[in-house]
């Protein structure tokens, strides 16, 4: 078990390193097609991280939406715009400072959190035992996350699906499905 934990920690570190490398490459890359490819890779890497965190449903969503659909949407956008990013004119100093301040604030916010994975955390003692106790009797499926999402919070999930569908229809209406008007295609 202990060797397992060490292995998972090493895998997490490798995943995070690759994630940072991909993010830096996305920032430095000028060709927008390569950026679309790299953002797909970024989602696949984060989906792998979610799997090592045991969040299977989040990993499913990230893989299907992040790596599949959003890559296709970005390429659809690319058909309407230029192939390369414009050179930036102003210096990046102020945005960098804002990022550092926001990141420091977020890290400061996590200092109050209970230790990761401890057995007496509020998340473990508040409503989770009730769901674990009631799911086999009331819903009768082995996956408790699915039971919570599809049954206990069924209306909430339906609302989410409606919002996502509306967003998709909006994006499709904006982009169209045919790309550039004919005869103006660039090579």
């Amino acid at each position: 078990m202990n060797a397992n934990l060490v292995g998972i920690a090493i895998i997490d570190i490798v995943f995070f390193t690759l994630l940072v490398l991909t993010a830096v490459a996305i920032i430095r890359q000028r060709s927008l097609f390569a950026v679309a490819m790299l953002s797909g890779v970024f989602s696949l890497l984060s989906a792998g991280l979610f799997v090592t965190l045991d969040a299977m449903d989040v990993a499913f969503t990230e893989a299907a939406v992040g790596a599949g659909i959003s890559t296709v949407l970005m390429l659809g956008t690319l058909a309407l715009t230029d192939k390369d990013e414009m050179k930036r004119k102003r210096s990046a100093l102020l945005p960098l400072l804002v990022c550092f301040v926001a990141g420091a604030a977020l890290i400061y916010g996590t200092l109050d959190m209970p230790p990761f994975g401890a057995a007496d955390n509020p998340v473990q003692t508040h409503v989770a035992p009730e769901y674990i106790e009631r799911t086999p009797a009331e819903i009768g499926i082995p996956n408790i996350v699915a039971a919570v999402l599809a049954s206990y919070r069924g209306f909430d999930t339906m609302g989410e699906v409606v919002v996502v569908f509306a967003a998709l229809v909006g994006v499709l209406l904006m982009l169209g499905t045919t790309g550039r008007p004919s005869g103006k295609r660039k090579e």
Partner: protein
Amino acid sequence: MYMFLAITAALFVAVILVLVRLFAGPTLYDRVLAANTFGTLTVLILSALGFVTERPDFLDIAMLYALVNFVSTIAILKFVRYRSFGRIRPETEDR
């Protein structure tokens, strides 16, 4: 278990090689191929990780990744060929 850890390590080395090709890749096709290979490697890593953590039910997610990877590679290649996903206009067909 150690064998699966070794497999995972080897797969991560392969991932790094693919990422180098994806970052540097001089032509567009290098990048498409690298992205496709990266998806395949993710599937393999997830399968190996499932056995490392002794929960091989991760294989379901690996299957999903394989399908998503296939569909998005087809979509990317179609985009590269026709510059659009929808109706293909006749004058673009003989490129």
